[in-house]
């Protein structure tokens, strides 16, 4: 009964979404306020319906209803409750429903916080989001129904993929989808502005906080996925340039460009059509990612069951949504004026350069990801494009953009004087340059790549400090605290995000430069020296888990003869699926990780008490990678907590409460 209720809720949601997509749009065209007014209640109702469907699916998982195909294929009665609930979004169907829930949630949020928007604009924005919802609901209902029944019911479920039975995987998809789908708001604003023919600074002002929030979620989601890969895949990698990773990275790069471009459009009125294009691109790339992951056109680690029918559906949907919006862009964007003027050296010109680099970087990732497909489609052979390619192309492309990150926020809008900039930044440059040249000697080994990486990171730290110092100096008199408080939250958000990039670069540089990876065979009691540490392998013992059997190794870590940590790497065999999982044991410190994972027993499967193959890695400063990403995301959230948004939100909420009370 519950699954049928969910299914019914989805069908009604489709009808509501269709109404939301068509009527307000027509209303805006015909200038019919009553038709436009339908948008808000429809968006809210759609959210309630999709949330109901989602709850029904979660209920089916929680209550082990194996008569639902999706539950039978992705859960098991032995699975702990929290993973049963997380299994709701562990499958293709369920994750698509999660995507839909996010979309409905974002459009409901727009309906709440759009009181100050001109009626026609709000109606168009919500209409566009309704139309996207129609596409996804059709996709769900016709090719990927999460509530499809299994007759007769399965006696037991096939279990959730062990890789997904992990806290990181519980939160990674919701955060990532919040980001992906969040870009639909900026997309909808862009289309609404194009349709309405009004592309001005106010448009940018409205879509800016939405974009920043989506970007912050996406940043956190990607970081979580990368961290998960690091400790569960067992080989200590944190980014492999796999198509599924690239699929999330391309919207991120475009979203980053969009945030900066929106800032210029809002403050200076410039780059209008470029900003609109970026808003269209960011969401288009989110959709493209969905296609790449779920259609099976590329070989990817992602384990979604692929199905050509689904691929065809998403591609057609993609062609309509993206093709339609780009056609609209081609038709309307030419009419947009230039906006504010600025000089060759100015904050605008640097932000434009940053945008161009980010988009070139995104295009390179896209090219590298799809190139094997291009060649294959032209019958020119099969190739692989992997980390060596992306490393060779990506770092040189982005390094100049990172350098500009230090200059841009200090440069004046409109026109910056080069001598003045040089005077402000000379100390930052000197400090960063000298430390970057000397630090590698202290850390152990000098190489050009390490020096360049450290320089970029230190440059960001130093320029951020200069920026803050000059702000405080310029913020009038009064105590330090009062001067700090005089600056808006969006300013601190920007500083934090840039600081996060610096922290991230430190992590990447030092782990790439100084990591030590040893794959060794060790006997019980044997000591292995790796770097400054000594690892003692004390054998492997079996241990039961809730739904798996584990072999737990014991490894003592010593430094200068002193025991500093005992690590317990695991190998698990899951009861239901028989799949094996490696859980690395990691001793984390701010200066880096000591990472141990179990390979195979040397004597074959029976000989678990003998010698083992063990991977021992030292990963200096690796956690700075994720720390940096979370600081970036945090910066995004700080930026939207800005007073001017908060005030606006409070006003809109008050208006909403007043309106409902008056009804």
């Amino acid at each position, binding site marked *: 009964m519950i699954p049928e209720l969910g299914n019914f809720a989805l069908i009604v949601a489709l009808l509501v979404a269709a109404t939301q997509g068509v009527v307000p749009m027509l209303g805006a065209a015909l200038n019919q306020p009553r038709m436009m007014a339908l948008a808000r209640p429809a968006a809210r109702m759609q959210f309630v319906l999709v949330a109901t469907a989602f709850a029904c699916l979660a209920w089916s998982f929680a209550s082990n209803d194996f008569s639902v195909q999706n539950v039978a294929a992705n859960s098991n009665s032995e699975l702990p409750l929290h993973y049963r609930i997380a299994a709701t979004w562990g499958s293709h169907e369920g994750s698509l429903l999660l995507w839909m829930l996010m979309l409905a949630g974002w459009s409901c949020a727009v309906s709440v916080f759009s009181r100050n928007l001109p009626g026609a604009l709000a109606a168009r924005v919500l209409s566009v989001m309704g139309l996207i919802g129609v596409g996804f609901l059709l996709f769900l209902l016709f090719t990927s129904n999460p509530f499809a029944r299994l007759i007769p019911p399965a006696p037991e479920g096939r279990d959730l993929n062990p890789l997904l039975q992990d806290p990181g995987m519980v939160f990674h998809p919701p955060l990532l989808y919040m980001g992906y789908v969040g870009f639909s708001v900026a997309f909808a604003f862009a289309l609404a502005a194009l349709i309405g023919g009004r592309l001005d600074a106010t448009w940018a002002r409205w879509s800016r906080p939405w974009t920043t929030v989506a970007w912050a979620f996406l940043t956190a989601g990607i970081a979580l996925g990368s961290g998960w890969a690091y400790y569960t895949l067992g080989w200590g990698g944190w980014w492999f340039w796999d198509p599924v990773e690239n699929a999330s990275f391309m919207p991120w790069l475009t979203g980053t460009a969009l945030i900066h471009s929106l800032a210029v459009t809002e403050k200076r009125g410039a780059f209008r059509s470029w900003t609109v294009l970026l808003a269209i691109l960011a969401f288009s790339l989110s959709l493209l990612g969905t296609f790449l992951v779920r259609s099976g056109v*590329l070989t990817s680690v992602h384990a979604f069951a692929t199905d050509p029918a689904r691929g065809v559906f998403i*591609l057609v949907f*993609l062609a309509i949504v993206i093709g339609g919006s*780009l056609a609209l862009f*081609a038709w309307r964007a030419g009419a947009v004026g230039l906006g504010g003027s600025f000089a060759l050296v100015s904050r605008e010109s640097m932000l434009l350069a940053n945008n161009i680099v980010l988009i070139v970087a995104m295009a390179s990732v896209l090219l590298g990801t799809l190139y094997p*497909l291009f060649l294959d*489609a032209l019958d020119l052979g099969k190739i692989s494009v992997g980390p060596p390619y992306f490393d060779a192309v990506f770092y040189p492309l982005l390094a100049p953009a990172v350098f500009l990150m230090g200059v841009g926020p200090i440069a004046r809008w409109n026109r910056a004087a080069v001598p003045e900039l040089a005077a402000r930044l000379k100390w930052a440059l000197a400090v960063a340059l000298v430390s970057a040249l000397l630090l590698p000697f202290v850390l152990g080994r000098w190489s050009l790549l390490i020096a360049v990486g450290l320089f970029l990171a230190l440059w960001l730290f130093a320029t951020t400090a200069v920026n803050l110092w000059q702000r405080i100096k310029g913020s009038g008199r009064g105590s330090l605290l009062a001067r700090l408080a005089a600056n808006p939250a969006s300013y601190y958000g920007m500083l934090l995000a840039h600081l996060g990039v610096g922290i991230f670069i430190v992590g990447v540089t030092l782990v790439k430069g100084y990591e030590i990876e040893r794959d060794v065979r060790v006997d019980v009691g044997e000591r292995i020296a790796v770097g400054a540490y000594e690892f003692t392998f004390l054998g492997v013992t079996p241990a039961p888990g809730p739904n798996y059997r584990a072999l737990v190794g014991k490894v003592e870590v010593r430094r200068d003869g002193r025991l500093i940590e005992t690590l317990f790497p695991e190998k698990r065999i899951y009861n239901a699926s028989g799949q094996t999982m490696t859980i690395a044991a990691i001793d984390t410190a701010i200066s880096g990780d000591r990472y141990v994972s179990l390979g195979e027993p040397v004597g074959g499967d029976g000989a678990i008490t003998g010698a083992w193959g063990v991977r021992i890695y030292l990963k200096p400063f690796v956690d700075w990678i994720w720390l940096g990403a979370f600081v970036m995301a945090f910066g995004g959230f700080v930026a939207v907590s800005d007073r001017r948004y908060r005030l606006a939100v409070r006003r809109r909420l008050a208006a909403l409460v007043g309106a409902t009370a008056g009804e």
Partner: protein
Amino acid sequence: MMGSPAKTLRWSIPLAVFIVLVAFLWAGLGRDPHEVPSPLIGKPAPAFELALLHDASRRLAAGDLKGKVWLLNVWASWCVSCRVEHPLLLQLAKTNIVPVYGLDYKDKPEDARAWLAQHGDPYTASIIDSDGKVGIDYGVYGVPETFLIDKAGVVRYKQIGPLTIEALQQKILPLVRQLQQ
């Protein structure tokens, strides 16, 4: 609202790029990204000299087969999808159109013999590649795989995965007839 035609053209670049992209993605839907085509097509078949499955004292070399068109079928007793193509191989063997040699890949000879005794033996002769080295020379990355080799000892075709009636009728047999002339 319209801008000048030149401007509209410039703003159409993203759309044009996207249309090309969709065309490629559409083409990609019909292809299997996992399939790795063999670089050996048109090149001499790698040499081997291996013991026969049914008589370990005798050996068969690739050079012994010069002058005839033959199929090399890579199989193993542990391979599940080999059972799918097996009836087809038996049928093919009955027609005597082309001799099929079996390369028993990474297998125990006794298991392989028992498997053939149970399912039928379509092979003119079977050779044992117990450590998989010949398999590597032929670029085998999964079982079953089938190679078509011509009179001069050049690889002409490779079937990745189980043989199918379509592959046999539309590709392999026409090619065999052509090569036999």
